[in-house]
């Protein structure tokens, strides 16, 4: 399986962190200016539903993508276009600016941009809308906790990923440490599968990865995951949600899209998609506020 998101052009030279700050600032200003008016975006008038996918998704599986699009088209009665980008930031930006009807994003960018975003559905994994973040290292290594990873070359998945960056940064922040000081070197792989690859190959001595992705990979690619091991599982955190721009939340097409996810388990095609995703279904609760992730964001930002 290949992570297609790796092949999306990454020719922007400036660092992701600086760019994120700029985009957040611009996004905030624009969102405020446009908040009170219905979004006259092109997406509203278009007949194609644009759904964004981030590296949280196992988007290297073309069969899965085809099955998902097929289901969504049938469920919504409209053409669906799956939009993939290399980074969480790009998808989040497209979503906020109304270039996408909805997207499967991570809890971290949702929390950071919750004023501009609205939840449509949350995946249910093992019966719960929750997952864990894993710290992994090489199978042959004797490390047992994060303290044993000091000085490592560490692989993160995305600077906007909860499990692939935020959880580990928060863990270090509790110790008053930053990743740049704790690890000898860090790099981003822009894909949870890539984090597993990097640790399995020895490119990185340890990595931060989505537990759901690692567990599914253990089933689908045991040869890869067997070269790694989990040395720490985080507390249960809110699963990466399906979100939309707050300005498009009442859009009928967007609502159709939301319903399609919520009703996925009641449809044969939908169940096929769920089987491929190893999910039980999608749900939505008004209480999904991702408080733990929010606390981690505050902790990390407090240290910055």
């Amino acid at each position, binding site marked *: 399986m290949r992570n297609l998101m*790796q092949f999306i052009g*990454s*020719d922007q*030279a400036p660092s992701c962190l600086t760019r994120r700050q700029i985009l957040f600032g611009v996004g905030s200003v624009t969102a405020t200016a446009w908040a009170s008016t219905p979004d006259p975006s092109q997406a509203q008038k278009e007949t194609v539903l644009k759904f964004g996918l981030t590296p949280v998704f196992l988007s290297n599986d073309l069969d899965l993508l085809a099955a998902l699009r097929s289901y969504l088209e049938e469920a919504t009665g409209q053409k669906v276009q799956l939009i993939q980008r290399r980074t969480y930031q790009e998808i989040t930006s497209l979503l906020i600016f109304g270039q996408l009807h909805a997207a499967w994003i991570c809890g971290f960018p949702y929390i950071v941009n919750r004023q501009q975003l609205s939840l449509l559905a949350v995946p249910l994994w093992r019966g719960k809308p929750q997952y864990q973040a894993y710290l992994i290292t090489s199978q042959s290594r004797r490390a047992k906790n994060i303290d044993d990873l000091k000085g490592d*070359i560490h*692989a993160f998945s995305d600077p906007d990923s909860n499990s692939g960056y935020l959880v580990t940064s928060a863990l270090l922040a509790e110790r008053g440490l930053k990743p740049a000081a704790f690890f*000898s*070197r860090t*790099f*981003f*792989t*822009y894909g949870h599968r*890539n984090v597993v*690859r*990097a640790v399995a*190959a*020895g*490119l990185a001595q340890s990595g931060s990865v989505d537990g759901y992705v690692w567990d599914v990979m253990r089933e689908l690619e045991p040869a890869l995951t067997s070269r790694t091991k989990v040395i720490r599982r985080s507390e249960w955190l809110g699963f990466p949600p399906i979100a939309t721009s707050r300005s498009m939340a009442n859009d009928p097409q967007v609502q159709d899209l939301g319903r399609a996810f919520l009703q996925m388990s009641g449809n044969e095609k939908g169940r096929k998609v769920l089987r491929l995703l190893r999910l039980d279904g999608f749900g939505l609760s008004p209480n999904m506020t991702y408080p733990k992730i929010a606390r981690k964001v505050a902790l990390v930002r407090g240290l910055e």
Partner: protein
Amino acid sequence: MKRAAFFPSTWPITLKAPLIVALFMIVTSGLISSQVLNRLISTQEKHLEELSGAYLDGLSSSIIPHVLREDVWEVFDALERTRRRYSGLTPVETIVLNAQGRVLAASDPQTYPTSSTLTTDHRASLFIAQMGKIVIAPEKARAYVLRELSYQNRVIGRIYTLLDISKLLSERRSVFLTLIWTNVLLTLLLGAGGYFAIRHIVAPVATLDHYLGRGLQGTVERIPDNLLGKSHSEFGRLFRRYNKMVAAVNERQDLASQLAREEKLAVLGRLTSGIAHEINNPLGGMLNAVDSMRRHGARADVRVTSLSLLERGLHGIRDVVRAALASYRRQDNGRHLRPSDLDDLRLLIQPTLRRKPLEIEWSNQLETNRIYGTPADRVRQIVLNLLLNACAAAASNGRVSFLANSSNSALNLVVRNDGKSLPKNYREFLETPKASLVPPNENGGLGLWMIRRLADEVGASLIVRCPDEGGTEISITIPLCQVEQRHAA
């Protein structure tokens, strides 16, 4: 004989020709195989260089942006993807260094960790690579390639790549073995084919060799008609010419034999006339003595003188007749020589000696009672002819000498004359065994020819000396065989 077999010059042509062909085949195939292999190696290396160049071109262009940003993951991912993509190339290791010479990413991060510098061991194996040129190490089945990463005319990093060339080497070995086996097979096949072909071609030569060999042994035979082959073929023409030559030789041999018989008759005639002369000489005196006795027989002194004269004359006649009888005694089926056989010859040549006149020095040192293991008639013929030739060549009032002695294994005879020396061609003729089947000179030399023929029959060797003061000395050595010594009467 066994030692001679190791010398190639003694091998038959049916063996030498195919061996030469095989040798040429081996040399030629060796040269061609070498050229083929060199060409294969050159083509493989060129192909490898092109492939590795394309690999590095693709890799370089895809990772330069990531090297600029020191993006470890993207560089590693590019290495992984390009390694899987090139089926004609087998990159074993690819290491990307940044501008500071530190590892940015490698296909084997365990051996070449990110941010590390290359160790001495690493450098030993990697730094064999040269910029812009592929370095091949067949002993390690590896090829080393080095490429600089440049951006805006600045070096931003380096790529080292180790390629596995075991498939190339395996291909070379396969081609080499195929060439070897093919050449061996072809050489054996062509060698065998050449052997049979040459054997077939030179079979007529063997036939010719057989008949020539028999000719050397004395029997010159023509090649039978069924072996002549086609008249227009080379060997057919050769055989027919050989048969014509055989006919000519046999004709000459017949002629020579006839001449030899006539010579013998001529010699016989000369001897007969000599004997008649020797008998006639005392007859006149004897008849005078008889007449004296008739007239004055009453006188005692006349009777004594006349009887004495008659006795001397009769003795002389008796000796001559006895010698003549001994010379022309029929061959006694290989009767061996006795010393007296030679002494008889002295009597036979007396008329010839008196005619010139010549002095004879006779020395027969053979043991009186011994029988010598050599045919008596042939030796007597040889000596008689030598003496007659010596008398003919000697000057008037000159001297002829004869010496005979022996050892346990050979009989030695020497005939000398003063006066003329034997011409060089006749000397060579006499000294050469089996010199000729025909006399050396149409106008003479029959006696010498007979001497040579008879010498060949008894296995004798002749040596001719011509002293500076003139004359000729002919020495003949006749090998003796063992005989039972009976009393020689």
